[in-house]
């Protein structure tokens, strides 16, 4: 009998530290599946960011460089330029990529760096306990927007997949979610497509993944997953915003 569910070889056999219902673990799994699919695990160098995903090296069985908060795209630039034959990806949260590291991601994308960015948008700063993120939705209550995000004071949620798509240097930019089996399949496919852009040297690829943070949203895992469909997807449209040939 064929096993239908196997741990990807790119993932280590350890329990994660993620909260129950957190979708980081699922996204890790999809990234590892894509690595296995292309057989790139032996060549892979991951660049970890600062946030709940900082322990990338604990879960992926790959070489890893840890970057300062927001700087993963610059570190990945240095890594990929130094080792162009390796497979390189960053894995970053929304505080990391869309606030403190906005400059680094935009310019790496614009230079058309040949690494892949996995961007986990959970509309909050998970690791630091639930502050407002650049992606927090209008009206969203967080530690630092206790009355709800007021766009006249705090500005608007940033749609990074669209921002990246607007840059000539970016070859592929997509937004996916992992809140339903159908969306998970689409996400798995998008991550593989993004990886193929690097492998085939077609250019910079960016995958924004909408993700639940039940802990900081003050919700159960089920409620949090429902919020993705009810509140996030209407604001952050799923889709492919750039797909260069």
């Amino acid at each position, binding site marked *: 009998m064929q096993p239908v569910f196997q741990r990807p070889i790119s993932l280590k056999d350890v329990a994660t530290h993620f909260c129950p219902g957190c979708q980081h673990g699922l996204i890790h799994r999809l990234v590892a599946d894509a690595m296995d699919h292309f057989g790139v*695990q*032996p*060549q*892979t*160098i991951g*660049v*970890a960011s600062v946030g709940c995903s*900082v322990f990338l*090296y604990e879960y992926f*069985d*790959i*070489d*890893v*460089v*840890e*970057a*300062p908060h927001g*700087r993963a795209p*610059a*570190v*990945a*630039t*240095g*890594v*990929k*330029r*130094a*080792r162009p034959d*390796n*497979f390189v990806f960053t894995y970053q949260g929304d505080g990391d990529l869309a606030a403190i590291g906005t*400059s*680094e991601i*935009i*310019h790496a994308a614009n*230079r058309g760096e040949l690494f892949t960015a996995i961007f986990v948008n959970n509309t909050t700063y998970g690791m630091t306990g639930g502050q407002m993120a650049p992606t927090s939705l209008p009206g969203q209550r967080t530690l630092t927007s206790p009355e709800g995000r007021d766009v006249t004071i705090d500005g608007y949620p940033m749609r990074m997949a669209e921002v990246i798509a607007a840059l000539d240097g970016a070859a592929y930019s997509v937004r996916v979610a992992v809140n339903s089996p159908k969306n998970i399949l689409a996400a798995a496919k998008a991550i593989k497509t993004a990886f193929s852009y690097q492998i085939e040297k077609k250019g910079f690829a960016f995958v924004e993944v909408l993700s639940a943070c039940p802990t900081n949203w003050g919700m159960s895992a089920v409620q949090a997953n429902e919020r993705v469909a009810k509140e996030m997807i209407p604001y952050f449209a799923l889709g492919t915003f750039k797909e260069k040939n």
Partner: protein
Amino acid sequence: MSERQLVAGNIAVAMGALAAGCRYYFGYPITPQSDIPAYMAGELRKMGGTFIQAESEIASINMLLGASACGFRAMTSSSSPGISLKQEGISYMAGSELPGLIVNICRSGPGLGGIDPSQADYFQAVKTGGHGGYRTVVVAPASVQEMYDLTILAFDLSDRYRMPAVLLADSLVGQMKEALECKPYVPPSDLPAKAWAVTGKQGRKDQRIVKSLFLGEGELERHNWKLWGRAEELKAKEQRSEGKYLDDAQLLVTGFGSAARIAKSAVEMARTAGLKVGYLRPITLFPFPEVAFQQATATCKKVLCVELSTGQMVEDVRLSVARDAEVVFYGRPPGTGSLPTPEELFGQIHKHYGKGA
């Protein structure tokens, strides 16, 4: 084979880096070091190396971090305000035990200040400007030849002791032209292999992880003691200085880099005038040449320290000299028209010679 050519100090840094095998340069434009990236842009692209003009100094230091994590010699250069922006990255490199060269062709400050030669970044370089408590190699060239030689030395020490290296100079040394002999580089045969560099696992059993996060019980404390141990070894083995007229000196003049050049002329004037004045110039600022200062002040009990600042290195001089030696300071904080002349320093020598301790 080595030939002599007339080049500017900044170009000598670039040539030294290329000679040392550096093929990765990441930077952001700022005066007065722009001839370094201009030279590197041309040469590295010809050699198949990597030159990136990054979006900021923050990005460039992190690109350096990435290339260094892969095990390659890599560098960035900038000037004071840009070096401030690199401090976060330097701290992460130190925490991650990564080598790499950071060149600071200092300009005056604080803030935007001006572009005149300055030595006011001594504290930032030597005491380290990032968070967390770490050390970096710091070298201070005073001639075009040293811009070349100390760039190479900085790469070697940085690799050997697994810590970033800072080359601290200013536009006086960076822009003057002198004859340079490009000695071919032979890497020290005992430089340890970079068995920590990320390559992709390639079938290797253990992962290689370049990081500065240590959360396990006692782990970070041990890590800090390990870094401390390397810095102590560096201090024990790698102090470098230049001394002249030390045997009979009754007044010792010291300074580093550009100030030392001017001071040296003043010392020669003093000797011509029959004054027994000695000269001691730190070449490595970290490790500081404590031993040379101790030895020189065993007999000479008065030291004049000259800096292009309100006084920074003088603190290390005071810590290093014999207990009964007196240290006096003469400084010109940087700015237009603030560069001291040899005659001015000769005046200072006169003022202090034969008086006090």
